[in-house]
């Protein structure tokens, strides 16, 4: 019996980061602005989070609008006009149904391509990288536009200083293309994990089937705001990102001192410092931009990468370790050699 192989792979294929774009809405809310309406202060927010300001969308601006802006810039950065697939990592889709990615793909002139959302909250970009990279390495597609985009301002309780002070809006995007393992920008190994016993630590309680399945509940009932149990999340974020990054480093054979740049999910400066300290990564190897943009959830890592590449603190050939933690609970880590890419 003969065995038929359709287009057998001659050699392994890797996804390679070839474009990088970012976009934050122009509106800025400073800590002093928040202190005007909440029981908080610039000093309190800075000491607890390291955040000075965050960008907030104007009324009527949704996640897809930010995603289109960032996606266009990533395509331009790679001198590309399209991709074979669009993946959106977001906690704040335009609507509960359908996914936001098909609309973004069409608005970018890519109607017809594969398009779907990844819902892993603040781990979404790392999960999205794993899924997008796998689509390429499995030769399902030759390129993927992966966009982390968030409009947390639409889900925050304006009276909750713990979340209002932390989160901001923004989007970051990467274009991945088919390439060779080992080249600069090649996406390699991942460590991914979850712990559903922590579901309620980070959530929007309402709006889903759990709430709607309850007798007497109607769509639109309460529980539409994002909630977070700060101290427990701080603890889990520190532990999970540390353990995930350690597992990834072990798998790829890097020591902490091999890491030139460490990009942790921009949740809270104290969490980033605690993880770096536990890993043994020096402070001057950290990429941090949350002081300027706050926690932008699934957008935080590509926004941090874009800012660092733009200001020259991220350079081609550097060994970059990425780790994230988010609702679910979920976490994930990956690493790459930074490519020669100019962010837009």
């Amino acid at each position, binding site marked *: 019996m003969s065995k038929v192989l359709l287009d057998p792979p001659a050699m392994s294929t890797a996804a390679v980061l070839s474009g990088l774009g970012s976009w934050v809405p122009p509106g800025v809310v400073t800590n002093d602005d928040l202190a005007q309406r909440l029981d908080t202060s610039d000093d309190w927010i800075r000491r607890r989070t390291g955040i000075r300001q965050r960008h907030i969308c104007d009324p009527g601006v949704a996640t897809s609008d930010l995603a289109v802006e960032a996606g266009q810039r990533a395509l331009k950065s790679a001198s590309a006009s399209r991709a074979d697939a669009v993946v959106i990592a977001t906690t704040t889709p335009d609507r509960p149904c359908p996914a936001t990615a098909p609309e973004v793909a069409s608005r970018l002139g890519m109607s017809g391509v594969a398009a779907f959302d990844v819902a892993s909250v603040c781990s979404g970009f790392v999960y999205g990288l794993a899924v997008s990279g796998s689509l390429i390495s499995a030769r399902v597609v030759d390129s993927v536009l992966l966009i982390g985009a968030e409009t947390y301002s639409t889900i925050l309780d304006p009276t909750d200083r713990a979340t209002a002070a932390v989160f901001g809006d923004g989007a970051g995007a990467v274009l991945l293309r088919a390439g060779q393992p080992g080249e600069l920008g090649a996406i390699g190994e991942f460590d991914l994990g979850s712990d559903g016993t922590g579901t309620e630590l980070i959530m929007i309680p309402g709006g889903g089937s759990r709430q709607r399945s309850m007798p007497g509940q109607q769509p639109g009932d309460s529980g539409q705001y994002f909630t977070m149990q*700060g*101290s*427990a999340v701080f*603890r889990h974020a*520190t532990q999970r990102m540390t353990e995930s990054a350690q597992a990834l480093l072990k798998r790829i054979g890097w020591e902490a001192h091999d890491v030139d740049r460490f990009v942790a999910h921009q949740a809270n400066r*104290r969490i980033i410092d*605690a993880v770096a300290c*536990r890993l043994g990564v020096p402070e001057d190897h950290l990429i941090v931009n949350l002081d300027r943009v706050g926690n932008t959830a699934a957008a935080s890592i590509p926004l941090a990468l874009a800012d660092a590449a733009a200001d020259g603190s991220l350079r081609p050939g550097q060994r970059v370790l990425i780790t994230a933690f988010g609702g679910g609970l979920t976490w994930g880590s990956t690493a790459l050699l930074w490519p020669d890419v100019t962010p837009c």
Partner: protein
Amino acid sequence: MQTVYPRLVELLARFGVPETEITLDSTFEDLDLDSLTLVEFTLCAEQEFGVKIEDDTLNRQDTLKRAAEVIEIQGAAV
């Protein structure tokens, strides 16, 4: 208690708490540790003593004496 408590005092020094301000009956609140700092302190204590301290085991109203007892019950590596 005799071995854990002095090491807790040393740990607290890393968080800027002078040894002279600390007694067995000091609460974390007395020592001006906010909730996030208490989490950071707990994570450091876990590493220091090789124990697991579950969420909400220690709060700001707990004393150093209680913290030392919790860590001892967990089987601190001393």
